[in-house]
């Protein structure tokens, strides 16, 4: 938080709630997997976004669906950073922590800034919960939280007492405690409850008891915030100036799903998705499966291989075909991707990366599939690789992936990751007319048609689909003779075809934007990023520039081929720093391609970079010694 609420001194006697204007705030809701933290977080962010407050959300939950209650490993959290200026990360440090039980306090306390606010549900600090959280005594009572401002309230008891006349079952009241916490948070930033109350009315239209409980408990939380006098300040978050237009909150997975339909409409092609459920990509399959009225077809396949091969079949049949997956699934699809390369069919492969290897940490993000995307196929099997850099960028990059796949008749890999796939941000909704047309010309000169003849510019072969009369032909995984497409084992032909396939992908360099640097166009240090690190790098850059550091930022969206001018750009800087959530995969690509020495900054903790980490690293490089941030 740039302009933090003034330091909260326990001896501070200011009892009046004076709204204080601040520009940014980071709030983290944490509780048991079953406490409804994801739900209240989502509702909170919807309410904020709809009144023009910028934000980025970060759902952070365990792989277990309902881990045993009260455990340290069962803590589920939803973090968001909100503010009146451009928000590009979900926040390094927490300003307000909602802790529904002892474990959720314990695992998050390290990230709470000194002077931050804790809203603790006392009910979750009983002896059983304390034991599970490995506390000997309640931290709410030992004084160990004295550097924070603590609101400790037994949310269930408060609700029971205040709402006793409504005759609500104890179970229902207990379940609605997340809305008590939400009520306090709404009060804290003086946020209107009405949109969330309306949502509750819709959600529980057929469950009167739950509706009564949740709406009243929510209200009660607000009142509780108002009445108690621990927190002197109610924060006032100003609205960001958004350009005129329509907006919605969008997550990366949602943006991919919508982007796929948009691409198919702009290409005037039917859409087909072949997919097998896998965390954290499953949501794309779920969204697409709900789009029946948009005429979309999907096949939930028996396995990852059938996911991609059914998509190849649909592509052969003239559809915009897609398969979605995450790392382990991508490994299983490798052989089939070679088939798509060989048959030169358009295909979109969406890989929502997660921490690996093997099952790894399914709900945690990583950028460690870059090599697999680039090289994870047998034989020489080049394909374009793209990476989205934010939730809403997933939409643009999906359209871009479709553009390249159709134009160049090739499978295209789009990398996102668990972070941007699940986090969300306000997105300015484009009108359909603003999107580029992707319509492909399917006309063929029948008299001279050969399956592997090529467009002289793009080197793409014609897309001739079953149903086109007089053009019947056979394709497959065996090496093809140039032009005729007949099976060929000729030595010269294989050399030629391998070079052609490589050249076709390399030529895409002429069809993608040049690398554009933000900041000085030459100098001491360039931070080179790709994918979801963009938010953290951007925030770090703003801080560094405001302090006068000589550093520039370049963010790659096209990873294969790389932008044409990239080599020249890199050589304009004395040092290049590549922060990435892997052990140095882009670093190796850059070094191999440009013989440029690069400093790697590798974080593989299943957590995105913090802006402060990148800021610190840059300072270390520029000043040449460790600098305190």
């Amino acid at each position, binding site marked *: 938080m740039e302009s933090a609420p003034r330091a909260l001194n326990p001896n501070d006697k200011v009892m009046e709630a004076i709204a204080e204007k601040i520009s940014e705030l980071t709030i983290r809701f944490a509780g048991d997997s079953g406490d409804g933290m994801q739900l209240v977080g989502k509702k909170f962010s919807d309410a904020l976004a709809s009144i023009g407050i910028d934000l980025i959300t970060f759902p952070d939950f365990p792989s277990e669906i309902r881990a045993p209650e009260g455990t340290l490993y069962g803590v589920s959290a939803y973090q968001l950073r909100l503010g009146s200026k451009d928000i590009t990360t979900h926040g390094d440090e927490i300003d307000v922590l909602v802790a529904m039980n002892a474990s959720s306090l314990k695992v998050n306390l390290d990230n709470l800034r000194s002077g931050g606010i804790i809203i603790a549900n006392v009910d979750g600090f009983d002896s059983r919960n304390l034991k599970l959280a490995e506390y000997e005594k309640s931290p709410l009572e030992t004084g160990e939280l004295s550097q924070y401002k603590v609101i400790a309230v037994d949310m269930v008891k408060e609700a029971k007492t205040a709402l006793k006349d409504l005759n609500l079952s104890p179970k229902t009241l207990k379940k609605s405690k997340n809305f008590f916490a939400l009520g306090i948070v709404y009060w804290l930033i003086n946020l209107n409850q009405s949109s969330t109350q309306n949502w509750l009315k819709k959600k529980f239209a057929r469950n009167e008891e739950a509706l009564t409980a949740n709406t009243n408990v929510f209200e009660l939380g607000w009142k509780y915030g108002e009445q108690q006098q621990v927190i002197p300040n109610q924060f006032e978050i100003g609205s960001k100036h958004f350009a005129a237009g329509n907006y919605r909150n969008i997550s990366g997975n949602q943006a991919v799903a919508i982007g796929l339909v948009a691409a198919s409409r702009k290409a005037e092609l039917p859409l087909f998705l072949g997919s097998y459920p896998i965390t954290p990509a499953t949501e794309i399959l779920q969204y697409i499966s709900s789009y029946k009225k948009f005429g979309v077809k999907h096949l939930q396949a028996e396995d990852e291989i059938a996911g991609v091969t059914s998509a190849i079949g649909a592509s052969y049949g003239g559809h915009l075909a897609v398969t979605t997956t995450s790392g382990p699934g991508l490994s299983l699809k490798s052989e089939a991707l070679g088939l798509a390369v060989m048959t030169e069919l358009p295909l979109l492969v969406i890989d929502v990366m997660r921490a690996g290897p093997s099952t790894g940490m399914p709900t945690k993000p990583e950028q460690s599939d870059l090599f697999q995307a680039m090289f994870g196929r047998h034989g020489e099997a080049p394909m374009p690789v793209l990476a989205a850099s934010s939730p809403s960028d997933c939409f643009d990059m999906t359209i871009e992936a479709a553009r390249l796949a159709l134009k160049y008749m090739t499978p295209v890999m789009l990398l996102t990751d668990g972070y941007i796939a699940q986090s969300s941000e306000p997105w300015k909704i484009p009108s359909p007319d603003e999107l580029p047309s992707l319509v492909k010309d399917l006309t063929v000169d029948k008299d001279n048609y050969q399956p592997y003849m090529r467009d002289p510019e793009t080197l793409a072969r014609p897309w001739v*689909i079953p149903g086109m009369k007089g053009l019947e032909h056979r394709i497959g995984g065996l090496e093809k003779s140039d032009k005729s497409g007949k099976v060929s084992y000729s030595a010269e032909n294989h050399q030629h075809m391998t070079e052609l396939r490589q050249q076709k992908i390399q030529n895409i360099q002429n069809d993608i934007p040049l690398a554009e640097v933000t900041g000085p166009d030459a100098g001491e240090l360039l931070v080179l990023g790709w994918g979801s690190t963009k938010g953290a790098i951007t925030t770090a850059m703003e801080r560094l520039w405001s302090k006068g550091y000589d550093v520039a930022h370049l963010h790659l969206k096209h990873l294969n081929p790389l932008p044409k001018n990239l080599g020249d750009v890199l050589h304009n800087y004395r040092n290049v720093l590549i922060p990435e959530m892997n052990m140095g995969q882009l670093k190796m690509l850059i070094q191999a391609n440009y013989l440029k020495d690069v400093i790697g900054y590798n974080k593989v903790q299943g957590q995105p970079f913090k802006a402060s980490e990148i800021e610190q690293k840059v300072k270390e490089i520029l000043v040449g010694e460790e600098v305190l941030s």
Partner: protein
Amino acid sequence: MKTIIDQFATMDVNGSTQYTSKDFKPENDVRWCLGCGAYSVLFPVQKFMPDLGVPKEKIAFVSGIGCSGRFPYYMETYGFHGIHGRPIAIASGLKVARPDLSVWVVTGDGDNMSIGGNHFIHGCRRNVDLNVMMFNNEIYSLTKGQYSPTSHKGQITKSSPFGVLEDPFNPVKVAIGTGATFVARGYDKDRFHIQYLIERAARHKGFSFIELYTNCLIFNDEAFDGFTKKDVRDDHTVNLEHGKPVVFGINHDKGIRLNGFKPEVIDLNDGYSVDDCLVYDETDATLAYVMASMSDNPEMPHPVGVFLQLDKPSYDENVVNQIAHEQEVKGEGTLEELLLGDDYWQVN
């Protein structure tokens, strides 16, 4: 929604269907070994195609890896030679995307029962309208002679020099057990029968599976001679025909009756008549399974013909209907509507 492929994907048969079998013979040389059982499938298929009543450009053959995988190159239609084990998955995507096409799968015992086993069982269950012809030579031929999941116990092959230790799959039983709606079996020495089965499969709406015994004269010669050679076949095979008593033998003097769930051979010259024989019902999956089990018992005649034919809506049809239903109830969705979603807000 109008698309640029609509003109090619229309469900109407508006192309020419006046063909002879020659129209389906490609210019490529067929490269199977001379005398291979696979020819006994290729020729009946080429012969039947003019009767299919579908324009050539609407027919697609999809194959996997193995000797059977070359089949699409020998048909003058659309063809896709896939990767090992995946032809049913590829074809399922093609057919779901393009229900207007007649989609055929050519696979083998290794391709379909081993590496592609998962796609096979789910293909049977899902009931996509495909015609699957599985060449079964009980050996891996293209890799030169290792045992396959249909090789018999004790079989000596290059990878089982002391005999196969595993029991084989009975592919017909797998197909029936996993929900296929059309299941049949034929053998290379009876091309007319194969052509009949192909026609039945083509007319069936849903997942059709034909197991075809195709002799590999290089690596597993005479594997089926014990019941398919001319001089023994009448006594050692039994052809299942819907609504007819199950009778076999060179003099039509043997029959099958059921003793509980157990099929038994009865001698029609020795106290039994045709009336004692089981009357076959190809719409009874349990009966089909019982009859298919006969091929596991060397004492019993080897069953061939159509085991099962069930009328059920196909998956591809269901996909189309579900979309049509949603569009009827909710109206056809526009891109603008999708982009906006339910919770958008306006900034002026």
